[in-house]
């Protein structure tokens, strides 16, 4: 049958490049090829060839039909982590030259496990992105209200820039205190630097933080602007090359890149640093899109991969955004889809604490090297996957579609020596104990995260995906009382699906400090509204200009206005979509307050509202979206509850709660919509294994999503 490819999603990892190609029916193929870091486009084309070979077609035939392409990759992150970026010079306030390497006094332990956070001996600062010798100070001072306390000493700028140029920097970053309140000084330094660079006959870029991230917190803002110069701008070249190579193969779309705020942006985007991390976000974006199509507003997303368990909440159709997250052990000012991560995945190491004889999981993991059962991985510590193999939950001959051969006897021996014997347990009981412990940890974690945000699992539908998710879905959702538990049949490729489903969307933030007391006079409310409106206008122009680069007109853009607000003096603000499109009068202010108090009531409690404190607007946000092609989700006619005979693969022995049990094995791809599978069953597909243990059953719906139902 002739295929009609529509969307290409690319995930270029450190070792493998995955491509995901979707046709106009919602069907898709996944291709894999070795990554080629020196020229990523080679690995990408190979991977696409591999994918399309399943449809018996070629890159040359299908690429011209594609309507959209989305890239996500780890190249920029690697450049950053391995400190292989550009030689960047930094200009800051005189006397503040060391704040960058001091990392807000927390970068020494970012990314560490909780126990290491408490274990001060393990703390260490990574080398700063810009070393001290490439940092220069110039005198000026602006206070937090935006008043100039000391004017800019322009005569100090020239020697600073000259010295940096003499040291052969490849980019200059300028970041002054409180520049988001008073951008003129930074821009003046920027202009002097540009002028001098021009005179010197060099061609190097200059980045003023206020042109990129006009937000509070100088460590975050400076780090992010440095990353823009250090890693993001060089990565732009790579992306351009990929875009070019794809168009040589006949593609006519502009490649977009997955960004941390949950949308995709152009490779020409001003702020490219936000494409630094995108992998785990894909799944959340996919869940949001699926929720929109199916009419589910509240979703608890859970994703188990090789190394971690990631949870994110979608509430009333909106992702929550963390405006100052940390990545790669750096504090940053990027809007990142808020996610909670615990270092427990299928590849997590399992150890017995020699002092207390208790089982510990992770936080480190074997990742793609699976476990002891996979000799080529070279792992000699037991992993969660080894326990799966011992229990019979994974089919050792059909792991990743049989591409990776696992050796159960190796897993058995390792679990015996490392876990069972020290604890005085049988090998099976030890392995079962590990899985039980993992699932109860995940369950507690999931529950505490939802309760901690002021919600209850019964208000949410839980989506479970990722290669390792469906193995444990029943275990970690049991008894939590979710409204529904759903496992998409394409769980393993869900991140790539999410990338393909992401909006073409820019989001820009600006810090504000607008304080309005309770019962303030009308002119104060009006002035506040005007200031907010001016910020929105500024951001709208920035967002609009980005779309212009991809030949969209301002009128094509759907602008969505947001603001951040808190009660004066409280510590946490809330991000709220503005109920108004323009600010005309006092009633618009009241509408903002009303929207804020409604969200505040939902997140905290009605009784906690404190209007007597007055209100602070702490930020303005503009999101702009344009229409792009998105994947269709599969839809097929319902057949009966009885699964077809050809889907039945036979029986396998699984060790469960103290005894070996005969379990029915089903082939996921051959099950039909409407089929009901009863316990005890395992549903296998090449990339994932879905377990339906006693006390559960599952039904496949017309969109090829399994509903996991607790029957006891």
């Amino acid at each position, binding site marked *: 049958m002739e295929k009609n490819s529509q969307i290409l999603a690319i995930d270029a990892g450190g070792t493998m490049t995955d491509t995901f190609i979707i046709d106009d029916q919602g069907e898709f193929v996944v291709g894999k090829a070795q990554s080629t870091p020196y020229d990523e486009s080679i690995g990408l084309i190979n991977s696409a060839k591999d994918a399309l070979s399943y449809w018996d077609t070629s890159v040359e035939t299908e690429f011209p039909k594609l309507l959209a392409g989305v890239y996500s990759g780890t190249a920029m992150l690697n450049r950053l982590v391995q400190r292989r970026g550009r030689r960047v010079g930094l200009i800051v306030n005189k006397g503040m030259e060391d704040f960058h390497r001091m990392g807000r006094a927390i970068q020494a332990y970012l990314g560490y496990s909780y126990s290491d956070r408490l*274990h001060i001996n*393990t703390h*260490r600062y990574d080398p700063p992105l810009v070393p001290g010798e490439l940092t220069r100070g110039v005198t000026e001072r602006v206070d937090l209200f935006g008043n100039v306390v000391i004017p800019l000493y322009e005569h100090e700028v020239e020697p600073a820039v000259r010295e940096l140029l003499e040291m052969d920097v490849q980019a200059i970053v300028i970041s002054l205190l409180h520049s988001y309140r008073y951008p003129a000084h930074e821009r003046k330094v920027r202009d002097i630097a540009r002028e001098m660079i021009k005179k010197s006959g060099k061609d190097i870029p200059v980045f003023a933080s206020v042109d990129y991230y006009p937000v509070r917190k100088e460590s975050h803002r400076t780090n992010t602007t440095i990353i823009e110069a250090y890693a993001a701008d060089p990565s732009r070249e790579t992306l351009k090359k990929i875009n070019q190579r794809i168009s040589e193969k006949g593609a006519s779309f502009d490649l977009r890149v997955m960004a941390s705020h949950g949308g995709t942006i152009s490779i020409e985007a001003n702020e490219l640093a936000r494409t630094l991390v995108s992998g785990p976000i894909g799944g959340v974006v996919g869940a949001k899109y699926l929720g929109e199509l199916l009419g589910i507003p509240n979703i608890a997303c859970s994703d188990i991969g090789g190394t971690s368990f990631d949870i994110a909440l979608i509430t009333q159709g909106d992702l929550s955004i963390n405006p100052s997250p940390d990545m790669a052990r750096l504090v940053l000012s990027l809007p990142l889809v808020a996610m909670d991560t615990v270092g427990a995945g299928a590849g997590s190491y399992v150890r017995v*604490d020699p002092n207390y004889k208790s089982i510990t999981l992770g936080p480190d993991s074997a990742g793609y090297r699976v476990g002891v059962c996979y000799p080529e991985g070279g792992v000699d*510590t*037991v992993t969660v996957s080894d326990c799966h193999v011992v229990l019979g939950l994974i089919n050792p001959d059909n792991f990743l579609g049989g591409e990776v051969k696992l050796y159960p006897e190796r897993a058995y021996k390792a679990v015996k020596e490392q876990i069972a014997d020290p604890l005085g347990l049988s090998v099976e009981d030890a392995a079962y104990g590990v899985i039980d412990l993992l699932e109860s940890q995940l369950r507690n974690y999931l529950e505490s995260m939802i309760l901690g945000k002021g919600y209850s699992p019964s208000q949410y539908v839980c989506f479970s995906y990722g290669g390792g998710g469906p193995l444990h879905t029943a275990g970690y959702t049991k008894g939590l009382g979710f409204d529904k538990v759903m496992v998409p049949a394409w769980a393993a490729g869900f991140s790539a699906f999410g990338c393909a489903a992401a909006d073409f969307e820019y989001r820009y933030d600006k810090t504000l400090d607008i304080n309005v007391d309770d019962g303030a006079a009308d002119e104060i409310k009006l002035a506040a509204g005007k200031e907010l409106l001016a910020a929105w206008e500024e951001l709208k122009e920035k967002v609009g200009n980005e779309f212009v680069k991809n030949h969209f007109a301002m009128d094509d853009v759907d602008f969505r206005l947001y603001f951040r607000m808190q009660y004066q003096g409280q510590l946490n603000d809330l991000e709220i979509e503005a109920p108004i499109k323009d600010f005309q009068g006092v009633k618009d202010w009241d509408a903002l307050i009303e929207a804020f108090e409604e969200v505040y009531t939902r997140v905290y409690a009605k009784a906690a509202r404190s209007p007597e404190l007055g209100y602070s607007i702490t930020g303005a946000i503009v999101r702009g979206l344009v229409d792009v092609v998105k994947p269709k989700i599969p839809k097929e006619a319902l057949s009966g509850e009885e699964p077809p005979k050809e889907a039945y693969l036979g029986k396998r022995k699984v060790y469960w709660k103290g005894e070996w049990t005969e379990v029915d094995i089903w082939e996921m791809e051959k099950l039909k919509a409407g089929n009901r599978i009863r316990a005890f069953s395992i549903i296998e597909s090449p990339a994932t294994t879905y377990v339906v243990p006693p006390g559960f059953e599952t039904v496949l719906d017309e969109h090829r999503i399994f509903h996991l139902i607790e029957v006891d």
Partner: protein
Amino acid sequence: MAVRIDRKTIEELIDGTIDFYKLKELLSNFKDKDRFQTYLSILQERVPWDDPILLPAGLHLYIVQKENGDRIVKCDCGHEFCDYRDNWKLHALVYVRDTEEKMNELYPKLLAPDPEWQVIREYYCPGCASQLEVEAVAPWYPVLKDFEPDIDTFYEDWLGLPLPLGKK
């Protein structure tokens, strides 16, 4: 199961030349069972005398077992201080920096402590003149023992190892 650490890594740990990422791995993991024995055997190999080391007691210092069963503090040069329950500092050479002049040999002018409030006591080995310890204390502060280990309990209950034979 803890990561198996080879002897070379422990040598680097003792010398302070260990790579930070390796050190972090050591710090964040459980200790392997024979870590202490490996550690001790490296120390033993590096000293020029044969008395078995029971515990390290500081830079250059060890608690060793003599043939007659006595447990004494000994410097790596071979100088023997005293019984391990006694305070070796009282048997060492001491240099006290208690004037501005002496302080200024170490610190830039005006950046040293006021000797009326704080003095610096330096302890040296009478055998080899190695600096063994430095303490910054109030002038009246007593010369305290650093620690008084319960060696028998440590070996028997914690390590589960036999003590080197003595005639005690």
